[in-house]
């Protein structure tokens, strides 16, 4: 019998039951085909590794709702029916690059709003970790914060501590920012917090030494924040971007020593999303990054996030150390202050939920808590 072709050896690696018995019998007895098969399998494994990026799970309800909007929009614009290619050969429709949905990467100011939104739930006790909304670190100095504050018209304290009121608006240089939500509230009942969030709230079963019981749950209802660009924004004039975040639930643990300072906090929230009325991510990013006052180093960091549109950046305060980690198979970021007395872990799980674990603890202790939730 002739040696086995490379194509059949490749399929043998993937679908061994689909190849005839005579092929497997030949390979079992032929050193040459075994060696070629091993090389082919190596290339296949390497390719599989290269494509093994973390796969996020789409929110089908949200995406179906968005499909309805897309359909109406395309019908309104008069797109013809049947404009597609034959099954599987050619490109059907060139997709519009103007994305109706943008990530937080869309720009500094939007990022700042993200910090604020999550901060509304978390910042009271976790001001060092501004926003658990991303899993890619972006260094943020005090000067950067002031620059963002100046751009958005919010004070830098507000950036850290949340919007000043549940509903309101502010005027930025390039447009207006409006937000609405309900005030955050506290409860001591996990059932109530779960009902408010409408998601499961994972809590650790084994706590580090020094951490007491859950003191309270803080619930931040969903927040909508909209940036409407004005004529100073050039081609963006009239377009708007709405960031939807929350609800978020923050479980606060007391210190076992009986002090009032919380020792540990565990926050859970769905991944925030941003919707644009028409401007693309690239347009918004380019506009915001060329605003006067944006520190060049920060602009460069944001640009370098490049392809990370789906990965939310975690602002890293200057002086903090940052490490890439994995929690339950999902990539995350571990932050610690210079003395290792305060640490936090942020990650997004496969179902699209964002988690933050932070405390006045050693980084390893914080990571151990996070791994119980992942």
């Amino acid at each position: 019998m002739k040696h086995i072709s490379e194509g059949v050896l490749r399929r043998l690696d993937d679908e061994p039951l689909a190849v005839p018995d005579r092929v497997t019998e030949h390979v079992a007895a032929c050193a040459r085909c075994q060696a070629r098969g091993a090389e082919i399998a190596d290339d296949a494994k390497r390719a599989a590794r290269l494509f093994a990026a973390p796969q996020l799970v789409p929110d089908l309800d949200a995406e179906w709702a968005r499909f309805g909007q897309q359909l109406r929009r395309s019908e309104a614009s008069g797109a013809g029916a049947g404009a597609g290619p034959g099954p599987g050969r050619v490109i059907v429709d060139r997709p519009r690059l103007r994305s109706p949905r943008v990530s937080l990467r869309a720009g500094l100011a939007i990022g700042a709003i993200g910090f604020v939104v999550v901060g509304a739930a978390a910042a009271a006790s976790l001001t060092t970790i501004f926003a658990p909304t991303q899993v890619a670190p972006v260094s943020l100095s005090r000067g950067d914060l002031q620059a963002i504050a100046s751009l958005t018209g919010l004070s830098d304290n507000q950036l850290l501590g949340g919007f000043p009121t549940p509903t309101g608006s502010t005027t930025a240089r390039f447009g207006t920012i409006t937000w609405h939500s309900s005030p955050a509230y506290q409860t001591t009942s996990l059932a109530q917090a779960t009902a408010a969030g409408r998601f499961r709230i994972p809590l650790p079963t084994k706590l580090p030494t020094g951490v007491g019981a859950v003191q309270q749950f803080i619930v931040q209802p969903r927040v909508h924040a909209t940036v409407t660009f004005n004529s100073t924004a050039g081609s963006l004039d009239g377009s708007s971007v709405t960031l939807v975040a929350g609800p978020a639930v923050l479980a606060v643990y007391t210190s076992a020593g009986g002090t009032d300072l919380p020792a540990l906090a565990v926050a859970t929230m769905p991944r925030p999303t941003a919707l644009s009325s028409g401007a693309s991510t690239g347009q918004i990013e380019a506009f915001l990054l060329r605003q006067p006052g944006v520190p060049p180093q920060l602009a460069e960091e944001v640009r370098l996030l490049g392809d990370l549109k789906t990965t939310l950046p975690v602002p890293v305060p200057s002086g903090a150390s940052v490490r890439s980690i994995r929690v339950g198979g999902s990539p995350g970021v571990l932050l610690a202050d210079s003395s290792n007395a305060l640490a936090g872990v942020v990650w997004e799980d496969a179902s699209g939920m964002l988690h933050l674990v932070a405390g006045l603890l050693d980084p390893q202790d914080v990571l151990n808590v996070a791994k119980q939730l992942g």
Partner: protein
Amino acid sequence: LAEFEAFFRGHYRAVVRLAQNVLGDFQLAQDVAQDVFVAAYRRFPGGYEQAGGWVRVAAVHTALNVLRGERRRDRRQLRVAPPSSPPSAEDAVIEREARAEVRRVLRRLPRRTAAVLVMRHGGMSYAEIADALGVKVGHVGTLLRRAEAALRKEFDDETHL
């Protein structure tokens, strides 16, 4: 629309996964998926038996179009020297660079070669790929083998620059 909703929910994740394999970007992959499903809705009025394979193939080709259309922008970005990253962020940087390199290689490979890689490593079976590419199922292994060898070669060339 109710019938289409069941089809949408049944196939959306697979379509996003394929587009994400090309683009390395979940949000952009969802944008591509949305466009593909709008096209499918128009193309298959009433019956969606044939549409499952079609949306997968359309996702791959549409995502490849987006990828190749963004080439110029990407080159511009590459000229920006990365800032000195703290050593602790090294893993994240390596992972990001590997993903970026896969996309650069996908741009350079012939379209069918890139498509077969993305389809197989996006979870499509040999039979589905055969149907998508209009070839016999026995030929898919050959195409895939050539594609993976080309990927290895391109990747080696790239990393040895």
